[in-house]
């Protein structure tokens, strides 16, 4: 997981996303014409150019698409890498996040993950936990 926990203020395109995270009910944009999800948020569908969009809650499940271990620099840096995870949501879009509750090295491509939230003040960041039973906790 990351040391950086600031939640972006968001903009006209992304405010609904960050607000849904704050409610612990993450929503993504889905095109109401071609019915495909998209992420990051934007007002036009990258598949069909439609501007008709609905914000829909996600199932909260996905698969690890890439797992990285970022090594912090500096005298007081921890020896363990910080996990940086690209998750493919079951809705078909990928997002950057972190798998919490597991060592970075114990998370593998293909692992099933479930959405959780980390509160930061009144906002929240979307993160994930491993579904795998043998995951190191």
């Amino acid at each position, binding site marked *: *997981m*990351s*040391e*950086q*926990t*600031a*939640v*972006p203020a*968001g*903009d006209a395109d*992304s405010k609904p996303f960050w607000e849904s995270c704050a409610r612990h009910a993450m929503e993504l944009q889905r095109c109401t014409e071609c019915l495909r999800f998209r*992420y*990051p948020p934007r007002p036009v569908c*990258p598949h069909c150019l439609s501007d008709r969009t609905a914000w829909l809650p996600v199932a909260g499940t996905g698969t690890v*698409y*890439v*797992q*990285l*271990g*970022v*090594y912090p620099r500096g005298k007081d840096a921890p020896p363990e*890498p*910080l996990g*940086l*995870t*690209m998750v493919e949501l079951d809705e078909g879009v*990928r*997002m*950057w*996040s*972190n798998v919490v509750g597991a060592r*970075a*090295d114990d998370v593998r*491509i*293909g692992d099933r993950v479930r959405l959780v939230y980390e509160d930061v003040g009144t906002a929240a*960041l979307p993160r994930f936990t491993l579904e795998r039973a043998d995951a190191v906790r």
Partner: protein
Amino acid sequence: MIDRRLSGAYAIAGIGETPVGKLPEYTTTGLALLAIRAAIRDAGLALGDVDGIVADQPNNVPYRAYALALARNLGLRPGYATDIALGGASPIGCVAHAIMAIAAGLCHTVVCVHTQKQATGRAEARRGHLYDGLEDYEEPFGLTSAVSQHATVAARHMHDFGTTSEQLAAVAVAFRKHAALNPAATMRTPITVADVLASRWVTKPLHLLDCCLVSDGAGAVVVTSSERARNLRKPPIYVAGFGLGYTQGPLEMPALTTLGSAQSSAVAYAMSGLRPADVDFAELYDCFTIIPLVTLEDYGFCAKGEGGAFVSDGRIELGGALPVNTHGGLLSQGHVEGMLHLTEAVKQLRGGEVEPERQVPDPRIGIVSGHGATLSAHATLLLTNESPA
């Protein structure tokens, strides 16, 4: 439809390089002007012969219109001037745009330049770094570096094809071997695969020695018609073909293991009528070891997934079947956004302009790649010293 009439109709007539490394005594724009001067002199031209300028923005100083700032510094009133914003694909992108501008009749002789002071010049920036527009979706989770962005490709390539850290290391070892023969290179002490594996992790699965240098420096080339180039000081190096390729970057590109290099090389091959088997050497953008490995696959030198085996056993070293990065590359010579891959290819094809021990024997055709903008841009250039029929 690719216009094959472009093939061989334009040439690189001059090249210029500044030193690379830590150069606190120069300004970013000063380096650009010195590289431009060197390229124009190399071509045997005068300033007044140049009527086009295409620039890549320096990474350390965000300019609104860099080509115009350089034109003002040179007193040029160009027929064509623009910036190319393709990250490490920009140097070849500059050449492509130069050719398109000449073909359109807007100008006849164009200088293309890239400069940067990433090692000592970041303080010059007054408005912060350049943006990709994805920062809100990356930085909160700890994604803050080009290393991590490129580590995605390595992680997926290893998972999907069984590529190993040792195979990535072979890339760094080969380019360092070449840099050891290049007095202009920053890192010249030979390294082994074990050295790469023993270097610290930056972002796993990439070690420190899988990562390129951070440098100050500049490079420039002069592009003109082949007809004009034949009457200049140096033998023309003809542009047999060029191509550009694009993806959406790591979050949205279809597969992380195929880059824009598949598209850009297909265009360049189609324009030139050349095939991978025709190529004598390659100068491939190497910000991280995984990128030239994937580029070799996308360019058709081996099948997808076989890049790891291809780069092992000395095949990409001088004396091997396909020498790659004969100057040492971004990994060992220095990082000028790939502009020095271009100048190196020209020197190799001219012959007699590099140290004899790193000269590819009698090359006819070289391929050059550029790659940048967080995996979203790629460019391919096919160069030859053979006069078009």
